[in-house]
């Protein structure tokens, strides 16, 4: 269809669809007046039965842990897809070697930038680790903390040290780490099956709400997810950076 026809067809359909949406949304309870049942029950049960004070994390890894299993494997599968799609093709080769490469695509980073990258690494690792480990007490958890952990090497990449970092943490290590994290979460669920008879049922002892290691399997699950998320995003970023910096078309024979 020509652009004109396409836009006209869309305009007409979109008007009708917008009307449908508005009519449907009009039936929603007014903003701020939600009175759902599930939320109330969970608010009551989360602290007393699971000793977790952050209910969002408790929901994520315990009550609705099966959703999280699916979600982390969506992440896993998509990153596999990225590795598949950006793989080296027959008419390409990995370009410059370490010594020859132009490390920073924009023509070399300044010393200040490189130093800042190095300084940020322990800071980000500490923040990320803190968020992962305290997920069941305060806002945070595996997903959020995992991303922050992954930004630590990323700040090195961005500060112009991609090739060196890549040499230290090759793809294989990242992939294995990601796989271990993904499988680890599933194993937590299976451990529940083995020890207590139901998949994802909590089998670890509880502690005092508000302390570390207080919420049983939620802590372990959160940790596994943190490992997986950071591994996954690092693999994805490495693939994209490889495409930009390393992969070159083979010269015609």
């Amino acid at each position: 269809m020509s652009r004109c026809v396409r836009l006209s067809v869309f305009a007409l359909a979109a008007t009708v669809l917008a009307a449908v949406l508005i009519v449907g949304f009009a039936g929603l309870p007014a903003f701020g007046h939600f009175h759902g049942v599930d939320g109330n029950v969970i608010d009551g049960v989360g602290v007393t039965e699971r000793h977790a004070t952050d209910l969002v994390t408790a929901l994520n890894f315990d009550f609705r842990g099966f959703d999280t299993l699916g979600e982390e494997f969506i992440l896993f599968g998509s990153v596999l897809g990225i590795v598949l799609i950006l793989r080296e093709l027959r008419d390409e080769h990995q370009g410059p070697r370490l010594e020859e490469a132009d490390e920073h695509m924009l023509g070399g980073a300044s010393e200040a930038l490189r130093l800042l990258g190095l300084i940020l690494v322990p800071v980000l690792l500490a923040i990320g680790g803190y968020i992962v480990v305290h997920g069941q007490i305060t806002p945070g958890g595996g997903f959020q903390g995992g991303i922050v952990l992954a930004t630590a090497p990323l700040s090195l990449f961005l500060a112009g040290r991609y090739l060196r970092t890549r040499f230290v943490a090759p793809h294989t290590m990242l992939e294995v780490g990601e796989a271990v994290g993904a499988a680890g979460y599933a194993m937590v669920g299976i451990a529940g099956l083995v020890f207590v008879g139901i998949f994802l049922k909590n089998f670890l002892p509880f502690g005092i709400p508000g302390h570390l290691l207080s919420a049983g399997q939620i802590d372990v699950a959160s940790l596994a997810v943190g490992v997986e998320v950071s591994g996954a995003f690092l693999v994805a970023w490495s693939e994209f950076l490889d495409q930009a910096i390393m992969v070159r078309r083979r010269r015609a024979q």
Partner: protein
Amino acid sequence: MSFLPFAVAAWLFIAGLYGIVASRNLVRTILSLTIVQSATYVVLLGVGYRNGGAAPIFADIPAVTKAVDPVVQVLVLTDVVIEATVTALLLALAVQAHKRFGSLDPNDLRVLRD
């Protein structure tokens, strides 16, 4: 005022669809897809809000305090992860499309058709 979030969500959904239909660059199409998804965040979070409710974190408030709904927050968390991964996958495809087709205009990416 109490309908505003949902009206915004409907607008985002339609505007994002328009972006996909009308854009001449694949990257812009992918980002319009992200806008469509933002509509879902707004609806889900808007649905769960309670006037005067605290965050569902009971570390320093008693567990019987009125709190906003935690379930929708978990749903949105899942939603965000899904969006990030699908967008990344699509961008990888865009990288290869640029290499293979030499262009990112959907008009040029048309090897398959009737």
